[in-house]
């Protein structure tokens, strides 16, 4: 028995273009990522641009099949499904992207945009209309507006419509890729509330991706932090928020404006910054911890071997040689 969504050792490698795929140019975008999402829970994935979030999502949904590893959704191994089976299974997994402006076809009215997927499911016209009205109502858009075109709606309304299109297919797993980042501040909270309501009402399971730690902490039941293709830390929201351990997680925390600085700083009070911002693609033959260039705690072993996600306490896991050793001792001796 697996958890509702179970990702095991997922890998995605991109090879160079051309007739001869050279290993030299191969880039490992996702590197042995494993995570499980309980049914009707929200799993938050935090990472910066270029960390492999998007590649991970594409692999999980089999929009771009992974190079290695397994994806189980509701005890179905996606890699085993034939193309037609995958197509029909994909109705159960929908995605909402960051930019609602590019997610909707500007030349299609809302009704047509939403019912496209339903046509494939063999719904007849009256049933499609009913379903579209139902989901528009759910996201707080008046069904009477279904003949309007995307440009007639504001950014927040467009994102509601995109969400409506996703739930129109009656999925049970929703991937939310930075769903509020492009919205106005005063609108973000509306959409966040809507997502929470829909999850409760429809019994949905979310993979919520964001660079905004505050937002992820507010919404998620569990959190994983991703850095350059690998998960560096995962745990329940309380575990991560109360005791962030990985040096990269600490750096993320200290970057939240207005938060107390908990990151290690150098003598001048500056945080280390590499000239590459740490988001350069990782070549397949890179060995050792990916955070080594920026890490204040780095040591010899960090370069020699790949750190694995290891349990620190409860469900809290960290992939760091330095933290593992000292922290595990501290935590386990705590009453």
């Amino acid at each position: 028995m697996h958890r509702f969504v179970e990702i095991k050792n997922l890998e995605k490698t991109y090879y160079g273009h051309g007739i001869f795929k050279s290993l030299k140019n191969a880039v490992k975008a996702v590197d042995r990522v494993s995570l499980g999402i309980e049914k009707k829970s929200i799993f938050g994935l935090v990472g910066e641009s270029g960390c492999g979030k998007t590649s991970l999502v594409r692999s999980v949904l089999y929009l771009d099949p992974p190079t290695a590893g397994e994806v189980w959704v509701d005890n179905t191994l996606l890699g085993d499904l034939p193309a037609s089976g995958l197509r029909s299974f994909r109705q159960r997994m929908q995605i909402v992207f960051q930019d609602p402006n590019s997610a909707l076809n500007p030349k299609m009215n809302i009704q047509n945009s939403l019912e496209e997927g339903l046509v494939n499911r063999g719904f007849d016209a009256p049933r499609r209309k009913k379903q579209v009205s139902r989901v528009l109502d759910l996201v707080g858009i008046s069904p009477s507006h279904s003949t309007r075109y995307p440009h007639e709606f504001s950014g927040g309304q467009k994102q509601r419509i995109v969400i409506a299109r996703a739930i129109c297919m009656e999925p049970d797993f929703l991937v939310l890729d930075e769903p509020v980042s492009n919205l106005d501040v005063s609108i973000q909270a509306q959409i966040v509330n809507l997502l929470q309501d829909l999850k409760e009402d429809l019994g949905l399971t979310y993979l919520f991706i964001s660079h905004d730690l505050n937002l992820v902490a507010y919404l998620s039941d569990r959190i994983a932090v991703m850095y350059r293709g690998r998960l560096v830390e995962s745990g329940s929201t309380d575990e991560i928020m109360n005791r962030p351990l990985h040096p990269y997680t600490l750096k993320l925390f200290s970057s939240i404006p207005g938060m107390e600085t908990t990151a290690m700083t150098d003598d001048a009070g500056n945080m280390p910054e590499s000239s590459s911002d740490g988001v350069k693609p990782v070549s397949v033959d890179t060995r050792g911890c990916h955070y080594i260039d920026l890490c204040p705690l780095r040591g010899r072993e960090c370069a020699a071997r790949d750190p694995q996600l290891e349990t620190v306490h409860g469900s809290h896991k960290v992939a760091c040689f330095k933290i593992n050793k000292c922290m595990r001792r501290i935590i386990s001796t705590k009453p």
Partner: protein
Amino acid sequence: MQKSDKNLLDINNLDISFIQARGAAHALRGIDLTIASGEILALVGESGSGKTVTSMSIMGLVPIPPARINKGSLLFKGNDLIGQPHAEMRKLRGKEIAMIFQEPAKYLNPSLKIGEQITEMLVLHLNMSKKQAVEKALEYLDVVGLGKSRRVLNSYPHELSGGMKQRVMIAMAICCNPSLLIADEPTTALDVTLQLQILKLIRNLKKQFSMGVLFISHNLGIVREIADRISVIYAGKIVESASNQNLFEDTLHPYTRALLQSIPDAEKRGHRLRAIPGSVPDAENIPSGCGFHPRCPLAQDMCSQEIPLTKDYGNGHSAACHMVH
């Protein structure tokens, strides 16, 4: 027109609209802003609230027409910039008033080397020789934390990371030693771990060169980190102005308060967020009276009828709301 030059920038009752085929858009409805030398004023607002029009009008880059300046003045070092000839404004831009933008990747010319993009300003504004300009450019790369790197000078923008590009933009902006720096969402497009570093850099540069800074943002968290004073703009009107501390600890305007309450964080877990209903009005359809009244929890009849005046509540804290006493 002479005035005491206590303030570096003094915007009085500036009112700008854009004349379009489908009607007029009232972008700024009489805003007041002041910035002193060595001070960071943050202008906080959502998309379409008038932030960008404000900064572009200071730069003299608002195209007239379609724009029309209905009234108001824009005093920079005591001189009204409104109505200045184009040639005069051009000499001020880059030299006296400089600007950095949200996405450095888009705002740098992709096919010119960094060195050329910095030195062309020095040659133009300060009449430097090419060689002097290169030396100066290296100096400023060092100031923004990139070291005296000839490698950076000889790079094209795409060869640099996002953080480096924004540092280059900043070096470019300050190389002629401007008295006013306009920073339009300078950290929004950057990764979270870089944002704070760029904020620190701007704060240090302000001190080092005693510049006035107009910092434009939609993010109250970031503004809290950097600003000396904050003005909140909504639908083309400043609704509240206060020192950094006062704005957060003694919030007066319902819009500011609603914004603060709607920001999610771990502490609010399990509770619904206090969302602001409705959506941001566009400049073509600004509600009558107080622009915020359709979304305001405190709104009364008078709010939809009368535009509230800006009242001073002491300590430089002002707000424009009928319901604040």
